């Protein structure tokens, strides 16, 4: 296999830890400690967190867990201020393009699903990239690529085995839907007055799991994530969020796709264990980048360490389009994704 092997080259481009990321680590406090321990012949102690200096140089999911440990206890007022700033940025933004027939969105997610079996509850995480095209008449297309299931811990896998190893979706699913088969939510009808909006969102909460404030917080995330709300609605959503009791500022953080943002979180009790919901915003544009959930305590329904992320959805694309034609296939004609070779333009 030569260095120019396109497959190896493609894999190399996806290196999760390029050297640039660890540059200078050899003189970090952690390195100095390792050097001193080594020459003193000291047994290496188990350390559970990275030094801050190193953590700052890491990207994406790698950093998410570390950043999370450093969550601040700053007052909710600060989170409220951040969200009010977001509201101001959102209000000054451009109106979304509504020319296309379909709302196209793409998300990258790790979905948590929990099953309550007689032998004990277990959880599994499914990585999934999903594209949806939905028209106001409820027609459209949903295409998803699902990866291998991830068991958070050995107990989950054992219980899954005891439950008879039920299968999970895997690979590509691509379905088109005729009018009425999908539900198109018309967000343009939502009120843009914050207190009216809160009343509407609150009324949509069906039960108490998660609690109402958290459910509203999640609803706000779902609407912002679609990317087609008007500037006035976006601003109102941020104002509603800024008034929710229990919001906490997380500060600068990095979303699961490695994008820099600022985070606001809330926590709630989920079947005996607390879970933290984190929303990551782009503080320049006010766009919602991702929604993540972290387990805060050991739980009976998932075998994961406290502090670990148990699910996320990252919003990676949203636009209006005229057809449900595969956007990526159009681009594939000019760039073969796995060969990395330029093949000329379409229609040549």
């Amino acid at each position, binding site marked *: 296999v030569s260095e120019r092997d396109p497959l*190896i080259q493609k894999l190399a*481009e*996806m*290196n999760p830890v390029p050297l640039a990321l*660890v540059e200078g680590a050899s003189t970090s406090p952690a390195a100095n400690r390792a050097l001193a321990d080594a020459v003193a012949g000291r047994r290496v102690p188990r350390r559970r967190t990275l030094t801050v200096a190193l953590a700052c140089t890491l990207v994406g999911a790698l950093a998410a867990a*570390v950043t999370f440990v450093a969550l601040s206890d700053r007052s909710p007022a600060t989170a409220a201020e951040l969200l009010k700033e977001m509201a101001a940025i959102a209000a000054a933004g451009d109106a979304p393009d509504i020319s296309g027939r379909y709302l196209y969105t793409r998300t990258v997610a790790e979905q948590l699903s929990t099953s309550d079996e007689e032998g004990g509850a277990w959880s599994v995480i499914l990585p999934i990239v999903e594209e949806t095209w939905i028209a106001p008449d409820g027609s459209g297309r949903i295409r998803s*690529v699902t*990866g291998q299931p991830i068991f958070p811990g050995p107990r989950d*896998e054992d219980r899954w085995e005891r439950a008879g190893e039920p299968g999970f979706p895997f690979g*590509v699913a691509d379905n088109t839907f005729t009018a009425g088969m999908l539900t198109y939510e018309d967000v343009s009808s939502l009120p843009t007055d914050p207190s009216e909006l809160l009343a509407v969102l609150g009324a949509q909460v069906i039960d108490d799991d998660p609690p109402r404030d958290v459910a509203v917080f999640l609803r706000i995330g779902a609407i912002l994530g679609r990317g087609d709300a008007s500037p006035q609605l976006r601003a109102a959503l941020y104002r509603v969020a800024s008034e929710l009791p229990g919001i906490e500022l997380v500060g600068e953080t990095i979303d699961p796709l490695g994008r820099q943002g600022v985070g606001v979180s809330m926590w709630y009790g989920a079947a005996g264990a607390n879970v933290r919901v984190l929303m990551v915003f782009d503080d320049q544009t006010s766009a919602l980048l991702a929604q993540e959930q972290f387990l805060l305590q050991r739980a009976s329904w998932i075998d994961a360490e406290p502090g670990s992320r148990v699910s996320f959805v990252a919003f990676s694309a949203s636009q209006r389009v005229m057809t449900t034609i595969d956007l990526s296939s159009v681009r594939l004609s000019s760039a073969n994704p796995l060969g990395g070779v330029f093949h000329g333009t379409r229609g040549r």
Partner: protein
Amino acid sequence: LPKDDKRDSFEVLFRSTYDRVLAYALRRTDPSEAEDVVAETYAVAWRRFDVIPPEPLPWLYAVARRTMANTRRSGRRRAELTAKLAAQLVPSTASELDPSEQLEEAAIMQAALRALKDSDRESLMLVAWDGLDNHAAGLVIGVSAAAFAVRLHRARRRLEAEIQRLTPKQKDDVGMEER
């Protein structure tokens, strides 16, 4: 070597290789464990300083690799570790593809990598991520350059097959064949 000379030489080795050994560990495990693995690797390096070859990286990687294998046996499941690895698998360099498309590519690549056996995945990572040639990669896993080349070839073929299996069929694929 006198003690001070040994310490100075070791520090030169340490400072000139630490970044790479850390990167090697971070590519294979989570950050908190990676730091421990690297510290343990250099603790071994100090004790065995007299046997470290002039080209120390493959030797250090091999020690880190064994350290990680021991840690894994003592607790965590492979699935958890490869999951972490895959979660990190986001394109890190600029490409002609737009970000969302890169992500789908990454999703396919991560699923394909996950489906491989550990040994296949390691062969590919040593070359693509750690930047080793066949000789150095062979030293890390304890085989000759020729034997490593064979392993890499097989691993590459299996990765390609997994990617093909996972990649959605596009109308344009047909168009490209017609050209």
